[in-house]
C-alpha cells in the first residue's frame, strides 16, 4: 500500500504540489491525471525519491520512504517513463537485466526472467533478446520499457505516461495487453496520463489534480457520473456519457436471443418467428451467420432464400465489449438490437438499445441532483 500524507513540494517559492494526500491500496491501479503542469510527475517522482518533498511523508507498506536508501528503494519499485529511456548501448536482454543485476541475481535466473518477461509483453525472446533499442519500433520499445520495470518483480510500479509516445492504435493495444498483465500480476500501480480515455479504461481509481492539489479521487464511474465540482465536470468533457458507457461491460445486460439453425424446416422457423419480429440464424456449429425477418418469411420457401447474411464485425459485439462499442455498432448498422457472440462467433445472446438509454438517463439524473 502506498500512502502520501500532506505532501508539499516548493520550487522557487511556488508550491508545485500542495498538501497532497493519497492512498493507493495493494493491487490497485491509481491513475493520476490533470492538465500539464499540475504536479503529477513531481508527485510520482517523490514516491521513489527522485525528488524529495519539501514537507509531508510518504509511506510504502507503512515504511517511511525517507528511511530507505534511495537506490535500494528504487530497486524495489518498477519505474517506466514516457521516453522509455532504454540504454542505447545495451541489448534488449541487457536492458531488462539491469535491476536483477543490481540485485545480484544469479545469471541463470536472470536469463529465465528475461525470456519470461518478453513472452509476457508479447515479444519473442529468440527474436528480441539480442536486438538493440534502435532496431525497435516505438511500441516495441515501450513494451520493453514495461518489461524492464517489471524485471525484479517489484510489488509497486510507477509509470509516467508509459504508452504516451505511440500512435493511438498501438496505444490501445498496449493498454489492453497491460490490463491483461495486471489481471495476472496484481501490482500496486500509480500511472500518469493526460489521456482521459486511458484513465477511464485502465484505472481502478482516478486522482484528478489541479495546481498541485487533489481535486477528486474516485472510481472512474463516479468521476463520470458524480463530478465533484465544475473543474472535474469540464475536465471530463461533454462526452462523459459516452466515456461512462465505455466503463460498463455488457455481460449483465445480455438477453437470450431467439435463433434457428440453418438446417431447420420452414415450419420450425415459422414457429420461432411467432413471438418476435426476427430470428438470428446460426450454422450447424451454432455460429451466427445472419437473420430472418418475419415479414419476408411469408414470401419465401426456404431458409436460404429468407436469410439476410451478416458480417460479424459489422453488427455483432463480443462478450468482453463495453456499452460504448455496442452503441457505436448500433449507430453504424442502424439496428436497435444487435447480437452478442464469443470470439469464435458462437451466438450468446442479444442486447437492446433500451439498456443504453436507461443507463445514460441514470447518469444525467445523478449530476442534476447533485
Amino acid at each position: 500500500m502506498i500512502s502520501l500524507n500532506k505532501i508539499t513540494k516548493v520550487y522557487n517559492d511556488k508550491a508545485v504540489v500542495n498538501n497532497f494526500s493519497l492512498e493507493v491500496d495493494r493491487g490497485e491501479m491509481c491513475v493520476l491525471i490533470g492538465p500539464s503542469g499540475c504536479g503529477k510527475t513531481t508527485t510520482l517522482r517523490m514516491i521513489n525519491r527522485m525528488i524529495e518533498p519539501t514537507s509531508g511523508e510518504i509511506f510504502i507498506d507503512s515504511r517511511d520512504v525517507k528511511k530507505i536508501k534511495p537506490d535500494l528503494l528504487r530497486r524495489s519499485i518498477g519505474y517506466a517513463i514516457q521516453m522509455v529511456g532504454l540504454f542505447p548501448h545495451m541489448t534488449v536482454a541487457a536492458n531488462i537485466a539491469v535491476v536483477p543485476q543490481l540485485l545480484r541475481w544469479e545469471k541463470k535466473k536472470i536469463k529465465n526472467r528475461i525470456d519470461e518477461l518478453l513472452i509476457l509483453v508479447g515479444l519473442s525472446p529468440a527474436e528480441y533478446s539480442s536486438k538493440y533499442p534502435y532496431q525497435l519500433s516505438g511500441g516495441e520499445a515501450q513494451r520493453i520499457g514495461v518489461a524492464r520495470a517489471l524485471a525484479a518483480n517489484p510489488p509497486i510500479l510507477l509509470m509516467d505516461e508509459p504508452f504516451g509516445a505511440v500512435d493511438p492504435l498501438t496505444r490501445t493495444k498496449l493498454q489492453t495487453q497491460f490490463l491483461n498483465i495486471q489481471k495476472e500480476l496484481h501490482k500496486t500501480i500509480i500511472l500518469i496520463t493526460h489521456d482521459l480515455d486511458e484513465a477511464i479504461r485502465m484505472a481502478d481509481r482516478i486522482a484528478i489534480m489541479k495546481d498541485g492539489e487533489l481535486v477528486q479521487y474516485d472510481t472512474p464511474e463516479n468521476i463520470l457520473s458524480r463530478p465533484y465540482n465544475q473543474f472535474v465536470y469540464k475536465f471530463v468533457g461533454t462526452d462523459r456519457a459516452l466515456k461512462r458507457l465505455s466503463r460498463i461491460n455488457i455481460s449483465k445486460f445480455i438477453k437470450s436471443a431467439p435463433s434457428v439453425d440453418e438446417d431447420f424446416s420452414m415450419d420450425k422457423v415459422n414457429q420461432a418467428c411467432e413471438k418476435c419480429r426476427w430470428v438470428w440464424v446460426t450454422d450447424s456449429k451454432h455460429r451466427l451467420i445472419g437473420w430472418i425477418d418475419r415479414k419476408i418469411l411469408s414470401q419465401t420457401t426456404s431458409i436460404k432464400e429468407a436469410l439476410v447474411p451478416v458480417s460479424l464485425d459489422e453488427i455483432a459485439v463480443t462478450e468482453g465489449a463495453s456499452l460504448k462499442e455496442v452503441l457505436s455498432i448500433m449507430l453504424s448498422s442502424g439496428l436497435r438490437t444487435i447480437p452478442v457472440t464469443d470470439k469464435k462467433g458462437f451466438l450468446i445472446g442479444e442486447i437492446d438499445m433500451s439498456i443504453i438509454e436507461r443507463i445514460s438517463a441514470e447518469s444525467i439524473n445523478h449530476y442534476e441532483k447533485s
Partner: protein
Amino acid sequence: MNLKSFSPDKIAISGCVLGLISLFPGWFILKPHRLSAGMSVNLPDSAGLALTILVGFLWMSCFVLSFAGKNDLQHAILGITADVILIFVFIFLSMASNNLDVKTHVSARVSPGAGFWLTMLSAYIVIFAAEKKLEDRLIIKNIITWTAPAVFLFFLFTRNLRNFSVVVEFAVQRQRFIQEFLHHIILVAVSVFFGSIIGILLGILAKRSKKARNPVFFITDISQTIPSLALFGLLIAPLSVISFKYPFLREIGIRGIGNAPALIALIIYCLLPVVRNTYSGLAHIDKSVIDAGKGMGMSKMQVFLKIEVPLSAPLVLEGIRISSVQGVGLTAVAALIGAGGLGWFIFQGLGQAAPDMILLGTIPIIILALFTDGVMRMIIKFTANKVKKQKDHNRL
C-alpha cells in the same frame, strides 16, 4: 546517363588538372652535395617520354572518373588510380636515384623539385576526394591510404632510394634521427596521456557544475588561440624563475627550456578538443536514459560507469584523436625551446638553408600524423559501432 547521377566531383577534378600541369615543371634537382644549387631535370629527361605520357594518361583517366556518379566502385577505382600515379612517382624517384653517379661525389643526391611535389599534392587531393565519397567503406579506404606509403617504404628498404636527398641526409644523421624520432613520439604520447586525463576531468567538471563551465571553457578556448610558438616562449620565463627558486626541480629536469615547458604547452593544447568533446559527449546523452537509470536504482557511480562512460566514449575518443594528430604537428615546434623531437631537423635545416634536412624532419611527422589518425579512427569505429544509431532514435 541519368542526370541525377551525373555529379562531377570538383575537388577531384581540380586535383587532376593540377596533376596534369605538374608534369611540366622540373621534377628532380641533382646536387653534388647539400649546399649546392644543383641542376633541375624535367620528367621526360629523367624517366623517358613514354612513362611521362603514361602518367599523363593516368591523370586523364582520373579526370574522366571524377565525373562518375554515386557509384562506390568508381570512387574506389579513382582512389586506386591516384595510388598508381603515386607509385610511378616513387618509381621515377628511385630511377633518378639509381642513375645518379655517386662516384664523383660521396654526398651527391637527388632532391625532389616542384613537379614532384605538385604531383604528390595532386594525387593526395584526388585520394582525399575519393575517400570522402567512400564514407564508411573502411577497408578500401585503408587500402587506398596505405598503398603508396607501403610502396615508398618498400623502395626505401630495398635501397632503391639511397641517393634520395632525404635518405642521404638520414644516412649522415642516423643516430640523431632515431633519437629524435623516439623523443618526438614520447613527447606526444606523454602530453596526450596527461592532456586527456586532465581534459576528461575538466570536461566532466564542466558538465557537472554550471559554475565551473564558463571558466573551464574560457581558459581552454583562450589557450587554443595563443600561437604555439608564443606559448612555448611564454613558459620559459616562469619556469626558469620557479626552477631557480626550488633547485630540486632542476634536478628532476624542470627548467625554463627543454622538456618541461614543451610538455606543459603540449598538454595545454591537448585540452580543448578533449574538454569540448567530453562535455558534449556527456551533454548529448538522452536525459531520459539517465533518468531511467537513476529511477531503476543505479547509484551515481553506476550511472556514470554503466551509462555515461560507454555512451560518451566515441566522442571523447574523437577528442583524443584530434589532440593526438594536432600534437604530432605541434611537437615539431618544441625543438625551438630545446625539447628536441623531429622539429630539430626542421629548424637545423632552416638555419642552414638545407631543404633536405627540413624534409628529414617533415616527412616522418606527416607519416606519424597519418598513422596516429588512422589508428585512432579504427579504435573509434570499433567502440562507436553499437551507439552509432543512437541519435536517430533519441526520441525512444
